[in-house]
């Protein structure tokens, strides 16, 4: 990998870390975990279920909010503030800039998720007093949540490469919501007929299938996750992220920075 990509990624990570909004979100995540403990205490016999459900949902929600709201500014903010001019006048390819920005935010989200996961496991230990073997599947759910962040980040970056931050936020959030119900959309497509079936199928396969990455409910019920699903989801996320980033690079390579 080009060292320039790593330098850009490292600077993007540093920007996020020095951004107070990020700290606030971590604090909110901790508060949500605290709330999970409270709910766990008043939910007799289902403390673990509630804590895992609420904790992982909070991790996912806060991460997605960070991915969208930082992701949409990754390129457009640099253009608006003209900080990009002194970067691209150096021996830096535009694709390296996109790759570096993506890796920087992805790294931020992984670190952020790590700290929130510690909060979730802490809350779990607090209500259960011990860990059980099935808690290991929570790590898989967290891994899927990170895959979800990567997809959302790549989409935010794609929209950021040609659109304003506001429109990028609308597009990215819409795709996140639709993608969360992708399985339902596929079900609707199979039930429809004619042109509607064709349209619904096209939409169902174009939007990211985030519902298959959501295994929070099954993990909360201590159900195991198959290796096949882990492999399929990993492959799907990598291909989807790759395609979104290629799109961002193709657009950004041709863009005039007025």
């Amino acid at each position, binding site marked *: 990998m080009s*060292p*320039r990509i790593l*330098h*850009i990624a490292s*600077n993007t990570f*540093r*920007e996020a870390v*020095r*951004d107070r909004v990020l700290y606030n979100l971590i604090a909110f995540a901790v508060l949500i975990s605290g709330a999970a403990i409270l709910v766990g205490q008043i939910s007799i016999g289902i403390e673990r279920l509630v804590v895992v459900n609420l904790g992982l949902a909070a991790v996912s929600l806060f991460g997605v909010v960070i991915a969208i709201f930082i992701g949409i500014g990754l390129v457009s903010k640099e253009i608006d*503030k*003209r*900080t*990009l*001019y*002194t*970067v*691209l*006048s*150096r*021996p*830096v*390819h535009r694709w390296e800039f996109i790759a570096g920005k993506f890796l920087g935010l992805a790294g931020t989200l992984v670190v952020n998720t790590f700290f929130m996961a510690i909060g979730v496991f802490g809350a779990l230990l607090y209500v259960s007093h011990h860990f059980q073997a099935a808690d290991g599947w929570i790590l898989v759910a967290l891994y899927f949540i990170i895959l979800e962040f990567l997809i959302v980040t790549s989409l935010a970056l794609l929209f950021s490469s040609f659109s304003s931050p506001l429109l990028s936020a609308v597009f990215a959030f819409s795709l996140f919501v639709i993608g969360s119900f992708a399985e339902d959309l596929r079900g609707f497509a199979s039930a429809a007929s004619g042109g509607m079936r064709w349209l619904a199928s096209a939409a169902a396969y174009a939007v990211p299938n985030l519902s298959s990455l959501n295994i929070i409910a099954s993990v909360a019920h201590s159900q195991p996750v198959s290796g096949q699903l882990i492999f399929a989801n990993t492959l799907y996320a990598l291909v989807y992220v790759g395609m979104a980033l290629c799109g961002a690079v193709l657009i950004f390579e*041709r863009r*005039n*920075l*007025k």
Partner: protein
Amino acid sequence: MIAIEILGLAKTYSVGFWRKRAKCALRPLNLTIHEGEIFGFLGANGAGKTTTLKLLMGLVFPTAGTARILGMEINDPRMKAQIGFLPEQPYFYDYLTAGELLEYFAQLSGVPSGERRRRVAAVLTQVGLADIGNLQLRKFSKGMLQRVGIAQAILHNPKVLFFDEPMSGLDPVGRREVRDLMEELKQAGKTIFFSTHILSDAESLCDRVAIIHQGELRGVGAVADLTSSVEGKVEVVWLASEIPASIRALVSECHISGDTVRAVVLEGNQDALIDALRRERLRIVSVTPVRTSLEEYFVRKLKPSEAAAGISS
């Protein structure tokens, strides 16, 4: 040796949302800048100076034409390692300190890790920011940011420098320091291409200048040549508080300030005036041919009637 070669570079933007229309930002531009020159690119606001610089930096793509810097195409990364660019009214990552920003740019420019700290410290000293290298850029004034901009442009010791309005936002002392720095860089063998609308800066710094107006090149040449056209008049200065009647008939323009008289006379009357001043026993301070200033040349080149005849490179 040619440092920058601009070959028919042109840019037309498409403006409007529904009904697109073409807006010409730069008509085909041909320029050649030699190594070691300080070249001034002059024009009023909106003339096309920044568009030209953005085209050379690969930030916008030309509609037609091309350019070569140090013999390499403008999209060649090897070329970009040998140039430095200061954008107009630069803005940097304000969460970084000046030192961190320069360290980051040194990494991107491929400065070896062992050399980075030394280079960063050296350029911070060179632009007078050595004491505040650890201060976050969000606390910097406009003039200080301009200095950081110059520092990042010269950080990796490039051969060719592009400055877009380098004196913008600087106080008189700051402007003087930037001028001195540019002189130093020229002495070190650097080529400097800079845009400005401050003609006095161009006149005092540049070997050659080009004048651009409404995206069109209106004139190019050595500053000495452009300002050397003697208009057949001479300015004579002598010490006196009034003008004797014998002299009044010889002078066309005359100003008295304190005990000094400044008079402009036709070259043909110069000897007669000097003889008359000697007869009156008045002390002559200076006799200087009247030359066209760069400002006068600039204003003349902006007149549409002279546009067609004025294009040369």
